């Protein structure tokens, strides 16, 4: 391997090498332009959030505002209540992710490593409902929540989202736990560890890659959730998440482009920042979904 690499390095300094790499640099240049266009909507949005309303209309393509209008953010944060919506979204997302990870890990563990009566039934029901998108069950979900007194409440929204189809997550855990050798738990059992100890001390820490995948995918789907928060907050505007708040905002202020852009920036910035900091985990987590 090393002689080959050294070979290539000397090769690179010659003209032939440069010529050989030229297609790659051309591809990179094309991709760079493509990527700039790709993220242009975000750049436009951030620029618009700092412009006056008049500037958004007259200088739509200029990315630099004349004089940054920070009061757009004040308007979106306080008047349009996006500060509150953001907090709501964080509460709902974090709670849902925690519940989903814990319940899917527990169910996956039991289904993977224990024989019990009813196991096949549980697995059968899970697989049968693998392909049920959320939108098609929304009517009974709303009806049931109403009868349980959970409609129009944050708890109801969290419970309904945690109960939505997460079959894939359970199956990922099942697959992973199945692959863990028996000896690992047997020695712990001989040492007198109980059922719960084995799970929380040994199995769950071992399943970190799956937990990363489930966390990232649940985080994305909950942060993105729209249908459920929409119908759960029809009569409780104070419980809106950012997605629902956004629709309400443009419904009420059709001409306030800069306010809209500021509200959108407020809603998106935390996740984008989180993504850039934790990029490796995002990528590995999503990759885990197809690898196993």
């Amino acid at each position: 391997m090393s002689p080959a690499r050294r070979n290539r390095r000397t090769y690179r300094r010659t003209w032939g090498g440069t010529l050989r790499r030229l297609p790659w640099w051309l591809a990179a240049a094309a991709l760079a332009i493509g990527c700039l266009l790709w993220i242009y909507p975000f750049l436009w949005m951030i620029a618009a959030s700092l412009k006056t309303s008049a500037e958004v209309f007259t200088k739509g393509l200029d990315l630099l505002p004349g004089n940054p209008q920070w009061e757009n953010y004040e308007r979106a944060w306080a008047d349009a209540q996006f500060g509150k919506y953001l907090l709501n979204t964080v509460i709902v997302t974090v709670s849902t992710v925690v519940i989903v990870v814990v319940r899917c890990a527990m169910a996956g563990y039991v289904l993977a490593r224990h024989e019990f009566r009813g196991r096949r039934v549980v697995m059968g029901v899970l697989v049968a409902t693998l392909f049920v998108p959320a939108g098609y069950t929304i009517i009974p979900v709303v009806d049931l929540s109403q009868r349980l007194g959970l409609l129009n409440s944050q708890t109801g929204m969290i419970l309904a989202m945690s109960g939505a189809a997460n079959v894939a997550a359970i199956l990922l855990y099942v697959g992973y736990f199945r692959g863990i050798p028996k000896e690992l738990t047997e020695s712990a059992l001989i040492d007198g560890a109980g059922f719960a100890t084995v799970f929380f001390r040994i199995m769950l820490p071992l399943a970190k890659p799956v937990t990363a995948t489930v966390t990232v995918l649940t985080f994305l789907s909950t942060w993105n959730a729209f249908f459920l928060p929409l119908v759960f907050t029809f009569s409780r505007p104070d419980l809106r998440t950012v997605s629902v708040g956004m629709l309400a905002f443009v419904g009420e202020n059709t001409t306030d482009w800069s306010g809209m852009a500021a509200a959108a920036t407020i809603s998106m910035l935390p996740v984008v920042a989180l993504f850039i900091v934790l990029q490796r985990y995002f990528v590995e987590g999503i990759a885990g979904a197809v690898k196993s």
Partner: protein
Amino acid sequence: MTLALRSAPTSAGPRRPRRPRGAARNTTFIWLFLTPTVLLYGAFTVYPIISSYVYSLTDWNGFDTDRSFIGMANYREVLADPMFWSSFRLTLTFMVFAVPLQVLATLLLAILLNSPRMPLRKLFRTALFLPVVTTTAIIGVVMQFVFDPASGPVNLALREAGLVMDGIDFLGQSSTALGTTIAVYVWKWFGITLIYWLAALQTVPNEVYEAARLDGAGGLATLRHITVPLLKPFLVIITLLSIEASLQVFDLVLTMTGGGPFYSTEVIEVYIYRWAFAATIPRLGYASAAAVLFGLFIGLVGLLQLLAFRATRRTRGAA
């Protein structure tokens, strides 16, 4: 009799009395561990699926407590409604255009970005993934402005480039609204499929490529004879995931076009929403019938995919 037979091989005499107790305790724990899933999943997924069948046989507006049983009348009405078929067709059109575009374009880019000779590939990956982490409903709203016929940046750019005289009302006319929505959808979720492919490519061991190079295989030959065949099983999984995702576009469509103009982007979910929540007199039974019909269709698609998945697995096992 059978009991005795079964316990015979254990032959661990002294441990016998303790075993059933341990097993019973285990059973308690097993069901304790399953309780959250049984309760939440049962209440918010299984029960709704079953009860939407029941609702679909009733006439119910959601306000009154009484629902009158009307048999298959809702189904007859749904099947006779041209709007239902139109949204059915739109949902399929969405899938047929979005999925291949997404799956194939990301594959090509992933092959490019997977090569160690590609400069700046990490940066490109980050940029292409960025839309995935943003909120769909907000993207939908922002895109309304981006595609605005008068002052939106897309039309401003087109006009400045001299390509059009007047702005194109991308989302306001039936002929372009669906195409624009599909384009935004692909843009939004492109990054996730790209990561799937990059993960798939990483499973091809480097030694295989080394061996191919030593055998004198060029870049294209390697691609055709090594990369593509090894990726086949992933193609099935990734297509499956993309199809499933493309059936859930409610948030994007509702915030970008609201199903309009003239119902030209009213996919099934929006159709159900309109009858169940946005109508002056909600018709939950009718909407449920539409949901059940489409649910059956999705189940069928899922089943076909599962069969395809099994088939590719078998061929891989045979090879």
